[in-house]
């Protein structure tokens, strides 16, 4: 067992982490909002944690709290992610479809350039030597962090989907105008879904900074936006298991393809092409159809309306 964890533990932790990030994008999607902002909040959460854990100005705080500093960084990452989510979400969610997607890409890029140029974020070099959570000896021990968080998030998502709020979000996704007419205030619910996703991404970022040991501007880029989106779509954007399965799978693909050496990134691209061609409902959607045939679902919210 120990050998297995030594070999594959890091990969499993990475897969769990990717599943969490997939879920962070799934929340706004529940309300029919295609947001690519997750990596921005993730990067923010990571920087918050990295700064709290390494910056000399917080040495006193670290001494006082001892190991308690780690939960504090999680809280800080989640809260700051959520707050930034409100700041960005309230204006941005007036946009729809591709316009929202592009605005959130712009947000991620602006954050990246700012992070690249501030002193407190370590500029282009980033922040190094982030101490391990609770003094973990091995990287696979992060399974104990990401695993329970994923379980909790899934539970929370499930309860949310079954609640009044979840039904309101679903109504917004299917037909915003009709939902509005039935007394579902679109803006409030959209912002709520967006902020939950942002807080989750911030929290995951705060947990990931020690996991990766170093944090820099590469953590929140356009590429990561795309990887997460691809994970959600390939896993299935209509079922809570979709983002988890897709995230875990896409995190594993490069590792599994390692024997292909230099060709693996090319194959990775081909996987995206083929999967989007042959699994339009995502893996989970395809499995669900195998087990119980249903009439085809309507596609996701109209992402590419020509009007805003």
């Amino acid at each position, binding site marked *: 067992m120990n050998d297995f964890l030594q070999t594959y533990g890091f990969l499993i932790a990475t897969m769990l982490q990717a599943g969490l990030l997939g879920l962070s994008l799934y929340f706004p999607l529940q309300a029919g909002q295609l947001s690519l902002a997750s990596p921005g909040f993730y990067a923010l959460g990571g920087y918050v944690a990295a700064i709290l854990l390494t910056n000399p100005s917080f040495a006193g705080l670290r001494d006082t709290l001892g190991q308690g500093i780690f939960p504090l960084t999680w809280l800080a990452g989640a809260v700051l992610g959520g707050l930034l989510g409100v700041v960005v979400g309230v204006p941005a969610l007036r946009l729809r479809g591709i316009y929202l997607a*592009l605005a959130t890409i712009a947000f991620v890029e602006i954050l990246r350039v700012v992070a690249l140029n501030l002193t407190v974020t370590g500029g282009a070099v980033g922040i190094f030597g982030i101490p391990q959570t609770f003094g973990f000896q091995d990287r696979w021990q992060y399974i104990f962090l990401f695993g329970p968080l994923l379980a909790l998030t899934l539970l929370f998502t499930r309860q949310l989907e079954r609640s009044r709020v979840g039904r309101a979000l679903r109504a917004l996704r299917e037909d915003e105008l009709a939902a509005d007419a039935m007394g579902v205030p679109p803006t409030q619910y959209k912002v709520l879904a967006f902020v939950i996703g942002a807080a989750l991404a911030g929290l995951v970022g705060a947990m990931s900074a020690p996991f990766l040991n170093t944090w820099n501007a590469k953590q929140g880029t356009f590429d990561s936006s795309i990887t997460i989106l691809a994970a959600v*779509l390939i896993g299935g954007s209509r079922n809570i298991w979709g983002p988890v399965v897709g995230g875990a799978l896409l995190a594993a693909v490069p590792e599994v393809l390692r024997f292909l050496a230099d060709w693996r990134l*090319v194959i990775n*691209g081909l996987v995206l092409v083929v999967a989007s061609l042959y699994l339009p409902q995502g893996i989970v959607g395809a499995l669900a159809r195998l087990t119980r045939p249903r009439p085809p679902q309507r*596609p996701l919210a109209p992402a590419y309306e020509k*009007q805003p």
Partner: protein
Amino acid sequence: MEASQLVQNLLNGLAIGSVYAIFALGYTLVFSILGIINFAHGAVFTLGAYFTYTLVVGQFENNGLLKGVNLFPDGSPFSGQPLTFALATLLGAVGAGLVAVLIERLAFRPMRSRGADPLLALVSSLGVALVIVNLIQLLVGAEIYNFPSDAYGETPPALSFTLGGNVVILRTVQVIIFAVSLVMLTVLGFVIGRTKIGKALRAVAENPGTASLLGISVDRFIVITFFLSGFVGGLAGTLVGTAFGVAGPYFGVSYGLKGLAVIVLGGLGSIPGAVLGGLVIGLAEAFVPADYSAYKDAVAFALLFAILLVRPQGLLGRSAIQKV
């Protein structure tokens, strides 16, 4: 800001802005026809530069296809590098256009025939971009290439004058970029606005179903659109490579993103919008003070974010009535 600095920034901004404009035109053409964004456009931009480089390096370092080719006899006013380089640029752009057609065939057409979610086409085109960029790395190498900076006889500058005691310089390559972009935009504007092909293209953009009922082969016009899109994308790649003297596998990534900012700023699907957006962003970047030059890359996105909030349809975009 001094007058000389102002004029210099204006010239630099117009030159780079015009490249942004023709590059972004490639996005906008595809968007106006298919209603999707081709995320592989940045990779096509890179390819254009690589094709030209491969063709032309022979002229300078003895291993390219156009090695030692002189289109005109020695001694004539047209002999030598500049014209060969121009031919290579054109061929490079054609190559990029053909690749774009291939992308349409492999990544977009199968989606269309299945009536798939447009979001999936986005992921598919991203997959293609990944494939292209990594194939370049595998086949040609990850190192950054030095574009022949003397391709157009870099020195002396096309224009150089003193204004209030400071020298203002307009580089030859900037003039060429500006001229090529202008010609490209005029030709495309003419083709789309005044010719029969353009009319058919606009019909397909407006309503593919009706257009096909009227006997227009929708697939053929989508292929034409992708070719044009790849052509201008590849051309922009070579022009930028020539202006900055370098090209590498990840060359197109930041331009790919900036191009998105350009078309949204101008108005998605609008050709004059792409031009205006390109010039606005080029100028805005040129006027970033030297002290803040590190933030230059954020300018386009800050503008994009701002314009989306104030005028979501972009500067020249149509504000359509929302469907009920």
